[in-house]
């Protein structure tokens, strides 16, 4: 591996860990971030001793006008489709898509289609990621085995480096659920929850005026709030850390706010599309917007934005690449999901342009907040930290013709403002935009 150091000059540096947002220089190599030097004011932290030497041979890059930020941490992305998911495959296209997104850490959730309870599958997933050596892919294993009626062998799965354990589906049996939570706790595996009641959550759209008008089976916000409470209640009993993945409703957030802080560290994130759209988008049965969790009302969207602004809610892509045929059906009969990983930053940038988030709020939600949710030592540009970085040009444009993801179900139809230009993983450049 090359010991090449990099010196990025003139960019706008974002380090949520030190609340730094300033024009300046960043020096890094495979050793890690070596120095952050803002143009005005003192450095937020002292440089590493290696910095001086590294500077001499560093490759310099003028990044004026660009944002320099930590590599994104996407806490929910599916990286394969179909049978491949089941055996822990990572489609090269999706790994490429992650790097083109500026993401250097991705969490793969357990799902009904791919529960990640076979240690071989998890080993395969983690091993493949390691072989690619270009980004960190972590598996969230399932809590229950394939039958859904017994605990998964969490010990074996933890051995394969699962980062957390989650519910691949709704667990109706509360005793089983409590045991699963206890067992995960005894193995120090934090919980990763997809909060959707298995009965009330069977619909295809948010329980609002659109579902009524279009005659679509509805999912009330209560389906999410109920699960938030159930999991929180049971996690509290054993003091288990808890992450709610892909929340969609004001009701869930209000409930989390209302619950006493307790002993349990609780974190959460929301999919990027739930910040951008509401169920109004479903008009005319536009199945691009058939998503899970569903797009909800404006009050929900505002509550989610509020959580992001406050720094308590992360943003995930909720990426699910699907072939064109998956949605070539009447709305509710098609598969839910959007291909979103590659467009995560430009989509988030839209929120900045619309004045709904500041740049730092966006960056924090995509980096430090998710990193902290899982105790990962990334998401920051402090000297000594791993050199996972992303270079974003707000004046660039991300077209839709040359996307790397194999998913044919991205929502957007027009090029997006802003483009990821380069991505570095452990100090090595792993992505550079063409042209």
């Amino acid at each position, binding site marked *: 591996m090359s010991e090449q150091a990099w010196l990025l000059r003139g960019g706008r540096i974002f380090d949520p860990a030190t609340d730094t947002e300033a024009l300046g220089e960043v020096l890094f190599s495979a050793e890690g971030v070596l120095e952050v030097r803002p143009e005005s004011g003192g450095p937020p932290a002292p440089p590493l001793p290696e910095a001086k030497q590294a500077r001499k041979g560093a490759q310099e890059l003028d990044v004026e006008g660009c944002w320099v930020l930590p590599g994104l941490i996407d806490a929910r992305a599916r990286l394969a489709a179909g049978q491949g998911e089941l055996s822990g495959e990572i489609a090269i296209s999706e790994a490429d898509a992650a790097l083109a997104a500026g993401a250097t850490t991705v969490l793969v959730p357990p799902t009904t289609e791919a529960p990640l309870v076979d240690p071989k599958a998890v080993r395969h997933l983690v091993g493949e990621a390691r072989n690619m050596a270009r980004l960190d892919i972590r598996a969230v294993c399932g809590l229950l085995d394939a039958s859904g009626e017994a605990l998964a062998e969490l010990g074996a799965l933890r051995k394969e480096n699962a980062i957390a354990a989650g519910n691949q589906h709704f667990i109706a049996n509360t005793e089983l659920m409590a045991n699963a939570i206890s067992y995960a706790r005894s193995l120090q595996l934090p919980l990763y929850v997809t909060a959707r009641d298995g009965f009330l959550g069977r619909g295809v759209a948010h329980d609002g005026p659109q579902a009524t008008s279009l005659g*679509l089976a*509805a999912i009330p916000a209560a389906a999410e709030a109920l699960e938030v409470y159930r999991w929180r209640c049971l996690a509290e009993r054993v003091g288990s850390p808890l992450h709610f993945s892909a929340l969609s409703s004001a009701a869930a957030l209000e409930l989390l706010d209302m619950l006493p802080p307790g002993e349990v560290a609780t974190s959460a994130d929301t999919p990027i599309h739930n910040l951008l759209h509401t169920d109004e988008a479903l008009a005319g049965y536009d*199945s691009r917007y058939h998503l899970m969790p569903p797009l909800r009302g404006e009050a929900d969207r505002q509550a989610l934005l509020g959580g992001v602004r406050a720094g308590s809610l992360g943003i995930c892509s909720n990426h699910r690449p699907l072939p064109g045929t998956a949605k070539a*059906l009447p709305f509710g009969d098609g598969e839910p999901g959007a291909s979103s990983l590659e467009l995560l930053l430009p989509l988030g940038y839209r929120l900045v342009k619309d004045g709904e988030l500041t740049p730092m709020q966006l960056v924090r939600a995509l980096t430090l907040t998710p990193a902290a949710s899982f105790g990962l030592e990334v998401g920051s540009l402090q000297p000594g930290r791993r050199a996972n970085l992303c270079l974003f040009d707000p004046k660039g444009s991300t077209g839709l013709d040359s996307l790397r993801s194999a998913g044919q179900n991205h929502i957007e*139809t027009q090029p997006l403002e802003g483009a990821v230009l380069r991505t570095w993983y452990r100090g090595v450049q792993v992505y550079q935009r063409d042209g």
Partner: protein
Amino acid sequence: MNATAGKPQDRALPTHLLDLDTLAAKDILGLCDRAVQLRDTGSQAPAALQGMSVINLFFEGSTRTRSSFQLATERLGGRVLNFDVATSSTSKGETLLDTLKTLAAMSPDIFVVRHGTSGAANFVSQVLGEGFGIVNAGDGWHAHPTQGLADILTIREQLGDDWAQRRVVILGDILHSRTARSLVKGLSSLGTRDIRTVGPRTLQPARFEGVTMHSAVEDALPGADVVMALRLQRERMQRHSIPSQREYFELWGVTPERLDLAAPGAILMHPGPIGRGGDLASAAADGPASRIIEQVANGVAMRMAVLERIAGLLARQRKKGG
């Protein structure tokens, strides 16, 4: 043809009748006028569909609606192909998309589509595009526009054109009713403001714009001049929506006594098939307020009017070289 369905058309095409969302009041009343003319000409109907073929593409069993469209087509001189999904290749695993492409390749003129999924007619519209006429004969819970139009015709014939003064009550399983949604949309376009629904909360949407929702029949019926009873579907009991048919009838079944709560001269309607002792009492179904039989005749006539209109638009479109 648009093979990558998922994105809706930018405008509702006039040759596609998918719902009553965008039909203007004058169009609704125009179709009503024409339906009356066609109904009263008997066998002298114009051969508006001469040389044209209509495919009845029914994914849900329905003898009544399908027969109604078939009669309407034949009376206008057209040919009908009944595509029965149970015996077709679709049930052998051919996708809906492939079925549509196959049938479209046979160059029929109009598709009449009934499907169990809300939005299916919109999907067919997106896939087939402008060259074909499409009539939604009922998609899931969403819409049944020709039924809505026929019901409006029945109301008009009995009570006249003072739509702003109409007080309409729809009783029963609103949540799963495409008939109710289409009727509400059509009435709203005509200017009717007092629309009420009544039934157990388990069978009502959480909220319904433009409609006042009630749980008790006694609260909803006073002053109503149209009482539309909906069919209670058996599977609602399995789905824990109501405890039993007996209790449903006890609390919400339409009886002559309940009809007495409505305005004098109020009419009783039902989209059929009726569930005697469930949705309504026989005495009500067969009583003087009932217009259920008229609804059936109006159904055929309205379908004739709709098919005639679409055939005319298609013919003009083709002349223009579209």
